C-alpha cells in the first residue's frame, strides 16, 4: 500500500497543528461555534446527540495492521472500546471529547492516518473497489489512481467551500462493487480506442432525499487529463450550483436542472479553458505512486482446492471467500453483521484480531467496504480453515454475506441528531427474524438497507429491500421500498405503500420474502424476481 514520504507526513502533521490551534480558539471562545463548525467538519468532527463523533479517513478502504491497531488503541483509550465502519469505508468513533481530538489526530498521524475532509462541504474520501489488486475481473489496480486523486483533492484551495459535499467512487471492474453510479463523480477505469487506460466519467449520482443514478458525461477521458477534467466539473458546480437551499445544492441537482447534455457542454468548455494552465499532475507521479502497489510475492503452484468437509466452515467459505486473480488464493470478506449485533461495529479486540490475521495470512493488507465489512484480500486457500477458526473465536465468522441478515444500516436515532427513527434495533429485529442459516441460504442474495431519515446514510434507495425511517406525528414510522441496486445494474428502489410501525415493518419484510419464495424461478435472485413480476404481487402480499 501507499506509504507517506516526508511531504505527505509534513502536510498531515501541519493539519494536526492547525486543528490544535482551531480547537484552542474555540475552547477559549475566540471563535464562535458557527465559525468553528465548518472547520471541525472538514476534519471529520461532528457534534451528535450525546458527544462528538470523529470520522477517521480510511483512504479508498485500505488499511495496514499497524493502522488497525492504532484504531483499536483509540477505541480503547478515547471511546468506549469500539469503532464503527461507515458506508464510505471510514471508521467513526462516537464518544469523543473535543479537547482530546488534537491528541487523537497526532496519534493517527504517527501511522499515516488523518480525518481530513471526511465531512463538511468538501471533497470526501474516495470510495474504491475493496477487492482492488486481488479481483480477477479488474483491468488494473485502481488504488494508485485513488491515491493520485486523494493527493490532488487534499486541501484543494478552490474547492474547499463547495456548495455541498462531493464524493468520488472508483472501480476498475465491470462488476461494480463501489456503487460508482451513486456518487457525485463515478470513475470507471477502461481501455480507450488506442488501448490506453483512461476513465469513463459519470456525474450527478447520489442518494439523500433526492436520489439519482449518475449520468455518463464522457465515455473516455485520457488518464493524463484526469486532474484538469475534475477541476472543470468542480468549477462548473462551484460557480453555478445552488447555494440557497441546503437540500438542493449537491451536484446531482445541477446536473438534473441543466440536463446532462448541457452540463456536459459546460464542463467540456471549462476544461478547454483550464487545460492551458497545465494543472494536470504528470503521469510520472502516478507511476511513483503505483510502485507502492506492486502485487505481494504470491506463491506459485499452490493447491486450488479447499477441504470443505466441516459443514460450518463450508457454509462460511460459500459466503465469504471470493475468486482471487492468483490461483491458490482467495479474497475473504469478514462480515461485521452478526445476528443481533450492530452492523459495522468492531471492538478494539476484534480490530487487533483482524490486524494479526492480516499480518499472518494476508500480506499485511486489510480493506474496509462500503457494505461495512472488512476484507482480507490475499489469503492462501490452504489457510482458510485457520483464518475461519480464528475469526470464529472472535465472533467474526458469521456466514451471512449478501444474505438477508447482512444489512447496511445507518446509526439512526440512537446516535444521530438528524435521524427521525431508530434503525439499529430494527436491523437487529430483522436479523433475528431471519437468523436461521438454512432459511437465509434458501432465500439467497438479498440486500436490505435501512436509513433512519431521508438523508439515506443507510443507502435504502439501493436496497433490494430498503427501509426508510420517518417521523409520523411524533412516532417512528417505517416505509418499505423494493427493487434498488447499487451495483453495475444500478436502480432506485420505490416505495410500496403506506408505512409501518417497527414490528409492522418486520412483518412486511417477511411477507415480501415469502412472496418471493412463492413466485421465484429456479435460482432467481430476489431482485431479478422483483424486476420480472413487478410490485403488484408484493403489494398484495403485504397489504392484501
Amino acid at each position: 500500500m501507499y506509504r507517506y514520504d516526508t511531504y505527505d507526513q509534513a502536510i498531515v502533521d501541519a493539519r494536526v497543528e492547525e486543528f490544535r490551534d482551531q480547537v484552542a480558539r474555540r475552547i477559549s471562545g475566540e471563535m464562535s461555534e458557527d465559525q468553528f463548525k465548518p472547520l471541525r467538519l472538514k476534519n471529520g468532527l461532528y457534534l451528535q446527540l450525546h458527544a462528538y463523533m470523529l470520522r477517521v479517513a480510511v483512504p479508498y478502504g485500505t488499511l495496514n495492521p499497524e493502522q488497525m491497531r492504532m484504531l483499536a488503541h483509540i477505541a480503547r483509550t478515547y471511546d468506549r472500546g469500539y469503532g464503527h465502519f461507515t458506508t464510505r469505508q471510514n471508521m467513526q468513533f462516537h464518544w469523543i471529547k473535543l479537547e482530546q481530538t488534537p491528541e487523537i489526530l497526532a496519534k493517527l498521524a504517527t501511522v499515516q492516518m488523518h480525518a481530513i475532509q471526511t465531512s463538511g462541504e468538501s471533497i470526501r474520501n474516495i470510495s474504491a473497489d475493496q477487492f482492488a489488486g486481488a479481483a480477477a475481473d479488474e483491468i488494473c489496480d485502481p488504488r494508485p489512481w485513488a491515491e493520485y486523486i486523494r493527493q490532488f483533492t487534499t486541501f484543494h484551495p478552490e474547492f474547499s467551500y463547495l456548495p455541498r459535499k462531493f464524493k468520488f467512487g472508483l472501480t476498475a471492474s465491470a462488476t461494480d462493487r463501489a456503487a460508482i453510479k451513486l456518487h457525485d463523480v463515478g470513475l470507471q477505469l477502461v481501455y480507450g480506442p488506442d488501448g490506453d487506460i483512461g476513465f469513463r466519467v459519470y456525474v450527478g449520482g447520489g442518494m439523500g432525499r433526492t436520489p439519482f443514478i449518475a449520468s455518463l458525461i464522457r465515455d473516455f477521458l485520457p488518464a493524463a487529463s484526469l486532474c484538469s477534467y475534475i477541476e472543470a466539473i468542480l468549477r462548473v458546480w462551484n460557480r453555478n450550483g445552488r447555494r440557497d437551499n441546503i437540500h438542493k445544492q449537491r451536484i446531482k441537482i445541477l446536473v438534473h436542472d441543466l440536463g446532462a447534455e448541457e452540463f456536459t457542454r459546460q464542463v467540456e468548455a471549462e476544461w478547454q479553458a483550464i487545460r492551458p494552465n497545465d494543472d494536470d499532475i504528470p503521469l510520472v507521479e502516478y507511476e511513483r505512486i503505483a510502485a507502492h502497489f506492486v502485487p505481494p510475492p504470491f506463491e506459485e503452484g499452490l493447491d486450488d482446492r479447499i477441504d470443505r468437509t466441516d459443514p460450518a466452515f463450508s457454509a462460511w467459505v460459500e459466503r465469504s471467500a471470493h475468486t482471487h486473480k492468483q490461483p491458490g488464493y482467495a479474497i475473504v470478506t469478514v462480515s461485521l453483521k452478526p445476528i443481533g449485533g450492530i452492523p459495522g461495529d468492531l471492538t478494539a479486540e476484534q480490530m487487533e484480531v483482524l490486524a494479526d490475521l492480516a499480518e499472518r495470512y494476508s500480506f499485511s493488507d486489510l480493506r474496509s467496504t462500503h457494505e461495512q465489512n472488512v476484507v482480507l484480500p490475499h489469503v492462501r486457500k490452504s489457510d482458510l480453515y485457520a483464518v475461519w477458526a480464528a475469526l470464529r473465536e472472535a465472533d467474526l465468522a458469521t456466514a451471512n454475506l449478501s444474505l438477508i441478515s447482512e444489512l447496511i444500516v445507518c446509526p439512526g436515532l440512537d446516535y444521530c441528531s438528524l435521524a427521525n427513527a431508530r434503525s439499529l434495533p430494527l436491523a437487529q429485529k430483522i436479523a433475528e427474524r431471519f437468523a436461521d442459516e438454512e432459511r437465509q441460504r434458501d432465500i439467497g442474495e438479498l440486500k436490505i438497507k435501512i436509513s433512519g431519515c431521508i438523508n439515506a446514510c443507510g443507502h435504502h434507495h439501493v436496497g433490494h429491500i430498503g427501509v426508510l425511517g420517518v417521523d409520523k406525528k411524533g412516532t417512528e414510522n417505517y416505509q418499505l421500498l423494493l427493487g434498488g441496486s447499487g451495483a453495475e445494474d444500478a436502480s432506485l428502489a420505490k416505495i410500496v405503500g403506506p408505512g409501518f410501525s417497527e414490528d409492522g415493518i418486520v412483518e412486511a419484510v417477511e411477507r415480501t420474502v415469502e412472496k418471493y419464495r412463492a413466485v421465484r424461478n429456479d435460482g432467481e435472485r430476489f431482485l431479478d424476481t422483483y424486476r420480472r413480476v413487478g410490485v403488484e404481487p408484493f403489494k398484495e402480499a403485504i397489504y392484501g
Partner: protein
Amino acid sequence: MADPIAIPADLRFRDDEPADEPAVSLDAFLDQPDAVSVRIEGGDDVRRLLPMLDRIQLIEVDFPRFRDGRGYSSGRILRESGYKGELKAVGDVLVDQLLFMRRCGYDSFAPNEPIDHAVAARALSQYDFVYQKAADGHTPVWALRHG
C-alpha cells in the same frame, strides 16, 4: 512550519499604490470605459471582465457568507486569465479562509470583522507543502518529488 510571515497592517500584500477610485458594480464598470476598479458580487461572471483585464487596477470580490465559495473560482479564473492587478476579498472573510484565498490569487483583504494578525500569521505559514498548483506560484509536492 515556516517562520510566521509578516501580515501588513492594511492586509494588502502588494507594494504598488492602491487604486484611487472606488470600485463600481460590474454592470456600471462595463458601461464606463475609463473605470479601473470593479466590484464582483456573488452571482457575477468574472469572465465578462476578461477582454479588459489590462486596464483594471482593483477587483473586489464579495464573500457574502464565508461558506459561499464561488469567489475562490472567480479568483483563480482571473489569475489564470492573466490579471495582475489587486484582487481583494471583501465581506465575510475569516482568518481560517486566508490561506486558500491567497492560493486562489487574492492579495488583499477587507474583512467585515477585524482579524487577529498573530493568528493570521500562523494560519498563512502553517503548511510548507501543497499538493496542487494554484494561483500563488507555490511549487506542488509532485514537482518537488520529480525535481
